[in-house]
């Protein structure tokens, strides 16, 4: 039991935080958002240079063999910076799926391309009827000679508009909500039968609607049983998002406390008012509880038992979702008028937090699912 970072981790943390401090101020971020595609290729190259894009991959694949703690360090810093680039989509989700579902050859071919920054990926799972269920898949994959052809509509594909390849869930057997009969297919973009319509999301990031009309897909792993690998990678994404949320929340809290010390009303700093101090304290408690859950999710995400692993990832999503919403609303409220404008960072944090709440299932959804089980405590 040791919460200290080792030397490599500390180095990583310092360098990512420095990058965010130097290159991800309010104005720079706005400039990045205004770049073609809504994010900065220059930043992406810097991420590659720092080794961030290959962080979780093995050295033989151009990576650094980083584990959950390394991912957490990056996520938290990215949360503070409200990073726009497709790290979650490409490295955590795309790279994760290739690592967990792809064969050795695919890994050897694609992972180095991710690490170098050439390859951008996206993961297409949401469908109009699916809501947050990963196994709710109506998109069909049919064998056509040696090829698989995909047919269906995918929505809110994170960074789907910049991806060179999209990882698509599609059904090869069974009916829409069956847990088996789901495959994962690599689809090249642009490609015949693939149409991608990109748009900004509410937090200034990007997503796309993807239509598949007979598009060719190459199966990644078992085309009849990709769900276990997908669920594992989504748990990793939940741990990443939890840490990103901690970064976002910590920044909102710090901004609120600062603002309270500076802003004067009735001849004194509003931070002198005890009622507001106590609310800032309640925000601190929310933050620290969320941080604890993010740590726990980080600790458990490498767990092989899918039930225990998912339980903690889902619990973290519940905690983050609830704490983050409350903390974010309080941060905006305590900033007053400027909190609801685009001109101050706190509102942007609030918007990102609101989208993190939604990604891969909101708090109520995960709580409902957890409640079906036997609880989240370890029996004595």
């Amino acid at each position, binding site marked *: 039991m040791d919460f200290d970072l080792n030397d490599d981790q500390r180095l990583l943390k310092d360098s990512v935080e420095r990058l965010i401090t130097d290159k991800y101020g309010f104005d720079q971020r706005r400039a990045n958002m205004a770049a073609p595609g809504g994010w900065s290729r220059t930043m992406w190259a810097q991420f590659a240079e720092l080794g961030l894009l290959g962080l979780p991959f093995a050295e033989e694949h151009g990576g650094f063999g980083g584990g959950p703690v390394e991912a957490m360090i990056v996520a938290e810093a990215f949360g503070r910076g409200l990073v726009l680039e497709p790290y979650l989509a490409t490295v955590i989700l795309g790279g994760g799926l290739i690592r967990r579902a792809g064969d050795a050859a695919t890994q050897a071919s694609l992972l180095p391309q991710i690490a170098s920054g050439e390859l951008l990926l996206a993961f297409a799972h949401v469908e109009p009827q699916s809501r947050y269920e990963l196994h*709710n898949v109506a998109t069909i994959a049919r064998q056509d000679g040696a090829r698989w052809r995909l047919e269906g509509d995918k929505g809110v594909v994170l960074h789907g508009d910049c991806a060179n390849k999209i990882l698509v869930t599609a059904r090869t057997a069974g009916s829409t909500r069956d847990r088996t009969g789901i495959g994962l297919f690599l689809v090249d973009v642009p490609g015949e039968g693939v149409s991608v319509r990109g748009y900004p999301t509410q937090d200034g990031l990007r997503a796309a609607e993807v239509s598949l009309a007979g598009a060719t897909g190459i199966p990644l792993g078992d085309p009849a049983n990709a769900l276990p690998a997908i669920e594992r990678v989504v748990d990793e994404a939940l741990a990443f998002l939890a840490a990103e949320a901690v970064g976002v929340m910590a920044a909102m809290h710090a901004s609120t406390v600062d603002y309270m010390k500076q802003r004067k009303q009735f001849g004194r700093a509003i931070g002198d008012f005890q009622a507001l101090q106590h609310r800032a304290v309640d925000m601190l408690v929310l933050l620290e509880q969320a941080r604890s859950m993010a740590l726990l999710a980080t600790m458990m995400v490498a767990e092989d038992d899918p039930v225990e692993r998912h339980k903690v990832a889902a619990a973290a999503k519940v905690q983050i979702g609830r704490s983050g919403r409350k903390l974010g609303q309080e941060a905006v409220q305590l900033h*007053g*008028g400027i909190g*609801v404008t*685009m001109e101050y960072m706190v509102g942007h944090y609030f918007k990102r937090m609101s989208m993190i709440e*939604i990604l891969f299932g909101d708090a*109520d959804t995960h709580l*409902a699912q957890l409640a079906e089980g036997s609880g989240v405590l370890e029996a004595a």
Partner: protein
Amino acid sequence: MDLSFTPEERAFREEMRRFFRTEIPAEIREKAGKGEHVSKADLITTQQAMNKAGLATPHWPRAWGGRDWTPVQTYIWLDEMQTNSVPAPLAFNTSMVGPVIAEFGSEAQKQRFLPATANLDIWWCQGFSEPGAGSDLAGLRTSAVRDGDEWVVNGQKTWTTLAQHADWIFCLCRTDPNAAKKQQGISFILIDMKTPGITVRPIQTLDGGHEVNEVWFDEVRVPYENLVGEENKGWDYAKFLLGNERTGIARVGVSKARLLRLRELAKLERIGDKPLIEDRHFREKLTALEIELRALEMTQLRVVAGERDRPRGVPNPMSSILKLKGSEIQQATTELLMELVGPYAMPYHAGAEPEGDNDPQSIGPEYAAEAAPTYFNWRKISIYGGSNEIQRNILAKAILGF
């Protein structure tokens, strides 16, 4: 004690309902009900239809179009307006500057401004808040210095709602910087927005919309006669203005319309193998909010009924409860819509911006487009018009005696 409406009151409700449902264009009510952007032209159309029927300014003095209604009638009028998603008459005109001019203005000001204000021929905006004077409004610094027949105004106002549409602004300006208390030495001045030296800078709100602005005054020359009432008495008029007609503040009708709509939408949205409305957790959340709203409706009626015994223009501190609870409920409806919509709350629709040109209905279900913008935008409800913290201070002092 008779807690039911009289037959006359029920007939009055029918009359209001019929008016709102037949005389206000359905497409305007529909847009408003869905939370979509209602244009300047829509607001003018609505208010002029109401004014024509004598329903835009019922609480004004009878001589200027008022109706001498009972508080209960006013409540019913407002409730039917909100429940039927009719955009209210522009508050800056009918609840704020209009009553102030009617009460304290010169005869010439009344003639010149009141009919045009009632009919929205003049669009007013409010120049109260400043960067350094929000909750602490009396700390304002925009100055007006007399120079012969004119005032020379310098300074900056902020959070000026819809200033981009406004023809005129009513401003609080400091006219005596040496007054003993900061509430003294403030005057209430009407300023034509076309006067040279006025600059309006938009402030983009979180949802990407343009509702509020900064307004800069640089050596703006205003006729002396645009002063309302007496010099240095502006704070009294502002208090009168803010105390006016506070019962609508709970926006019970608006929340009721939203909750009924949420229930309908939850029949369309699916969770797992069934409609969301059959999900117990969602239903319980929705029902709990409906209960809070019914209680608030009753609280509002109690305040309305109490108006009868109160002096005019003196705000009832109980209305702070309406503001607190009303804002909580309104905000909760936006959270519930976010949850209802699920992943399709994420796309940002440029069409959600006022005067935007995209088609907001092209991504995900139509009703999803407004979910996040409304959630973000409505955080303001607990901030503006006296933040909820200020409302708590008022209640602590005025009701609890701290």
